[in-house]
């Protein structure tokens, strides 16, 4: 099978890869680019662990062809904050005990970010609904929801607090 050249824009950087046309974005991210923060599980858009942002919208990387994504800005968990820093959502997940095994968390954080980017007045039902496509088996979602709501509150209360904090 002939490989085709693809130019992917991930976390603001351009990556040139050679891949067969049937390869998914998820597979290229993890195998070719070593970006293992985006996880794999069902490969059928049912569990959400592979969630990335495509032009700001949450999507399942497992059912997107890498070839479809040329020239379209992709954000993975690795791109959420500069190295050594934490996005407010990441900090909130830590502070609120929203992380247990952690495997669903990268996808969950990105889905939450997409939701908050579009909703300046989030509520619990809205958050749960926005995260419906991200299965978590460990937490029961409660502290995840609290973490997401707290970020919105923080941002509303003081915009400066939304700036990135230093990671431990």
């Amino acid at each position, binding site marked *: *099978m002939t490989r085709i050249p693809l130019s992917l824009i991930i976390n603001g950087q351009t990556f040139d890869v050679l891949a067969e046309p049937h390869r998914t974005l998820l597979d290229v991210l993890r195998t070719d680019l070593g970006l293992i923060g985006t996880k794999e599980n069902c490969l*059928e*858009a049912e569990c959400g662990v592979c*969630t990335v942002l495509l032009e700001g919208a*949450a*999507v399942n990387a497992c059912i997107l*062809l890498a070839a*479809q994504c040329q020239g379209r800005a992709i954000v993975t968990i690795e791109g959420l904050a500069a190295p050594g820093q934490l996005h407010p959502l990441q900090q909130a997940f830590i502070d609120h005990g929203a992380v247990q095994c952690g495997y669903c968390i990268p996808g969950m954080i990105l889905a939450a970010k997409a939701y908050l980017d579009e909703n300046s007045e989030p509520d619990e039902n809205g958050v749960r609904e926005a995260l419906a*496509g991200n299965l978590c088996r460990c937490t029961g979602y409660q502290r995840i929801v609290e973490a997401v709501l707290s970020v919105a509150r923080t941002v509303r209360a003081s915009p400066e607090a939304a700036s990135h904090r230093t990671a431990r």
Partner: protein
Amino acid sequence: MSAGDRKEERVSFDYHEPTTLREAIDLGARFGGDARFLAGGTDLMVQIHRGRLSPRHVVSLQRVPGLDAIEVDGTVTLGTRVTHRRVETTAGFQGALRALVEGAEVVGGHQVRNVATVGGNIVNASPAADVVVVLLALDTTLTCLGPSGERTQGLDSFATAPGVTALRPGELLTRVSFPRLASRSATAFLKAGRRRAMEISIVCVAARLTLDADVERCRDVRIALGAVAPIAMRARAAERYLESRPLTDETVREAGRIAAAECRPIGDVRASARYRALLVGTLVPRALNRCLERIRNPAS
């Protein structure tokens, strides 16, 4: 005796990204049954992953212009590539066309709705497809473009069996449209599933009700049912029953009973036939009552 269902497990195909409609049609004509059009991919890619489809060519529509417009000008026209997310968030659909939003917003999760398209959903022809059921209740017409030109067909005759449509070889569904609603009309959509999200409907119901000018009598009604027949269906006997009848608790219940009797559900891993019929009998009256409330109080 050999192992397996002989699934073609080696996934491999050529990928094409036409930049005009003409080019897309030509590719479809060239490759015929070896090709599949790719819109959102939420059905196609899953079927490929499960080994049910193994196209040699995938023709992506994402660079073809003019397929993702929403036009509201009396008639409503949705381009085939309009996503569920766009339907869900179109302000103009929050009024009498509310069922469109209600049908779109229960499909998958945000990730699926961000890419899954109306056209892809129609062509996939699952009897449970939520937005299709709503479009059926809106008397939707489809426009298809193929090597021999453009044609239209009613949605209600388009699907012929689960996964099978009247789409001709090389044809592409380009847009769908439905007429403006008469005054004193409202729509509603209800879905039953085993959990509150990420559900393929056990049963779904869409209703469009139009009342007479001054009294609460049915001037015109459409009732569409999902997941209770090989294809999404109209409950035509129930519709005929309701026409010209006053809308009361009794008549909506009777409409529900008639709809339950005329549907043809199967039992499967999701639900039994008996429960599906029971749900039709319950959800049809509820959908009609909701339409009634919305006509009485359009702000609700």
